[in-house]
């Protein structure tokens, strides 16, 4: 019995079709993978932005006194012109660690039942061998204990990086006679991947909830 076989032409055509199919499949797969990677990277940016803002939000809400100069109070019309590198672009506040289990009346007259720390969020340029004006920013959190005269004790300072890769970060308050105290703290934060088009920006408003001890 004569056995039929594929002709060379058939094989060639099949091979070409297969190659085309695999190529297109690869392209689809590859493209999807790239897109997925980008999405994941963007998602990481979004996550980093969210996490950072949530962390600062928690920090500020637990604060007991926000310095009225850091950040300063601005007219609404001035806000668009604010820059990350502005000297007063910092968020400075005091967090009191109350020891409510200690009855103040049982303490010696020079003691109180709390300790206080000064917390500062500030920005600095990323340090890299070829740092340029276009380098991104790093957000630093410093916490410094205050002594009994409410002066910072720098030897006890702890510093860590909260977030890097920041394109823009502005701390500000807005003049509004209707708001209580100095109004809410606003934070504008924009981060993105280096040399890539994607970036995310968020503006949040926070108000501290606690108060300083009266004595």
């Amino acid at each position, binding site marked *: 019995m004569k056995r039929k076989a594929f002709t060379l032409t058939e094989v060639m055509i099949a091979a070409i079709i*297969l190659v085309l199919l695999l190529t297109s499949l690869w392209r689809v797969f590859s493209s999807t993978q790239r897109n997925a990677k980008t999405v994941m990277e963007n998602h990481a940016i979004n996550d980093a932005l969210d996490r950072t803002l949530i962390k600062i939000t928690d920090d500020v809400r637990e604060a007991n006194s926000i310095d009225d100069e850091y950040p300063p109070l601005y007219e609404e019309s001035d806000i668009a012109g604010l820059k990350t590198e502005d000297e007063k672009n910092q968020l400075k506040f005091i967090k009191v660690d109350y020891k409510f289990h200690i009855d103040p009346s049982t303490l010696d007259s020079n003691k109180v039942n709390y300790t206080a720390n000064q917390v500062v969020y500030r920005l600095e340029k990323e340090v890299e061998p070829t740092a340029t004006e276009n380098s991104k920013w790093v957000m630093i959190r410093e916490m410094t204990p205050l002594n009994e005269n409410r002066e910072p004790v720098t030897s006890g300072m702890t510093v860590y990086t909260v977030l890097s890769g920041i394109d823009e970060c502005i701390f500000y308050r807005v003049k509004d006679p209707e708001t209580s105290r100095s109004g809410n703290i606003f934070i504008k934060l924009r981060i993105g991947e280096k040399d890539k088009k994607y970036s995310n920006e968020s503006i949040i408003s926070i108000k501290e909830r606690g108060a300083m001890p009266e004595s």
Partner: protein
Amino acid sequence: MKKMNRKGSAIITAIGMGIVLLIIIAAVFSFSRYRTQTVIQESKKVKALALAEAGLEVALGELFNNSTFQTHTVKINGEELEWESPQNRECSLDANSDHGFSEDSGNSGTLSGSLGDGKFKVRVGTIPYQDNDKTKAIDESKAYLRVESMGIYDKTVRRIIAVVNRRFPAREFLMYDGGILSVVYGQRGESSINTFSIGHLYGHEGVEISQVINKSHADPNPGTKQKIFNIDAILSGNGGIFFYSDVDATFFHKNGTEGFNGTIPKNYTFPSGGKYPKGEEAFGEMPEEMQNVTPEIPENIKAWVKDKNSGISIPPRAPSFDDYKKQAQNGGAYYSSGNTQYKVTPGFGGPLNAVYLDFGSGGSKIREGNVNNFPSNGVFYSDKDIVIKGNPPKDVSIVSEKNIFVAGDFNQNCSGEGKERYCYPQDYPSGKNALTADDYVDTYKEDFKKDTEANGSFKYHVAATIVAKERVVFDHRSPVDCCENELYPFLKYELAKAISDQPNEDEAKKVLSPNGNPNIVASDSIDGFKANIATFTDKFKISDSSLTTDMENVYNNKSNGGKFDDAALEELTKVTWKAFKNQYTGGEDYTGNAAISDVKKCAVDLLLFKLRAKMCNENIDTDTVTEFVEPDSPQSIVDKQGDYLYYPEMTTNGMFISCGKQNNTFYSGPDVDKYFNEIGYSGSTGGGISNQWYKSPKGLLHRTFGTETNLRLYDVKRIPVSENTYYPPTRKKVYDDTLLKLDDKDYSGNNLELSGFVVLSWQDLGATEEEFEKF
């Protein structure tokens, strides 16, 4: 045709592609699901946190309505605060919300409720501290509350743990202002010093403290100074604290810091020509340049002086007039209309249909008063204005939907014996006098501590709460009302001299001594006595036939052939004082507007002039004094201890609460005459009387033990400066912790108490569904 059996890879390829597609779909689905779940979870956390915050706010709402509200007791266990026993409680919040708010039924322990699709549970309890004696105005045993609140949305739970500082503005704050607290009292060119002592000074929108100055801080002739003496703290919840001039101050020692005794330096120059965006310049608006400004506070006083950056914010909140009214209608005294026409300055729109409440002079028995039936619960409420003076016999709450005029001495009783025969002995430390001393002599003030004794038989001060929906107005026009206890014993002395045929200063002086036991020998004939009293009435420019008759009756019925012992002299003084008052008032109950215009011919004023002269020179022959003689300086007033010569002062003690907005023309800053909620002497337009002695900085002293609260909540009729001006008295505002209600150790709850709550610490924590259920 036979089917060909051709082999190929289509199935494999299809399967492969399918797998790849499945992987992609699974990856996309997984990613989407992860993102969706993350977003949902974050959303649930936010909602759960909002519910937990709602629980905290519900607890604060209940506390606002009833400052003693608590669900549990709290115990300190090592380094932890723990919930102990559930407490009975009553909830008061209405469920009239568009957001599905409701509180669950139950009257003990954890308070639970719902809001929208979620639920919350909250506990509140007082942290068991001891009262700290160093802080006179605060009772720490009731000041700190632990609040724990949980919110659940679906199965996500958040927990908030907070500690709240409970404050009582009217009970802790020497002066509380819902707007800007202005401690700039006085006038240009005057050397007087106002004293503000103990307790807190609070201005919600800011505080200004300054000597009266003018001409853009370059006044060659500055005026009245303010002295901050042993104040607990100066606070602003929503503004800055401005010192336009150096201010002498002492602050209490507090834990963690030494006390302060020195001068607070000027920290701000009031802007001249400032802008006023609201156009309210004349009614307390700060210039735009000062808004949002928080002047630098020197480091060494930061423990006591705290602006808005400290977060100690106690916004003004209205008292419950409805509840006061109900109390007045059930066991109190309720007035829907007045019982007199009260004459006031044009700015107040009088005469006013007012309820006149004179509680009498108390132990001194100089005056009976008109409140014959004191209500069982001590609550007086009027839809109209109220006028008050005198010494209430029991704790009292006086509430008006309009104004309350404090038209004379109020709430400082005396035993009527010994050194307290005519009033509390208003003596000052050696070398000081009423104007130069910060307070009464310490040894006498010890007596005030009797007020705090449970079941004490006598109290100098009762717990007096005075609440006006518009204004509490201090009316210091009339020396008859404000200075009766000072003038009366001096009149007795003058009479002792006048009725004697041979005036004997030494014998007359016994009248001024608590141990004097005077025995005055008048003429042994009625004609001789008549001649002497004619001289007396002529000297005091009083022509009153009934007075002459009354005096003759006393001679005939009380004296022993012209020998006046103390009782007879007392009777003579009573009838004479009554005539003096009638001459001054035209016979009306109150004396807000004098019946006579020429005060130099008025017996009361002549008596005042002579008293003032006697206090400057105890050896002066007062018969020679016919006009006001201004002392060289406040220091030249000799005010010996242990006699009945008292410097004329208006004494008003209690918790005075006004709810109206600023109504007098009232420019902020240090360089204008400021008019507070007061009526006093004005030379031309104020409608007051022409008492020359008021004009002097060494004139009237207004002393207040207690607190003054201006909530600034309601609009009130505005008063142009031309319709209520006056010469300001020297002020001594002293928080006195023996004054009942201010330091009420047995305070067991008063749901009408003004209260405020400051969240000191706030933590947002996670929790499980199980923990929520068990809470």
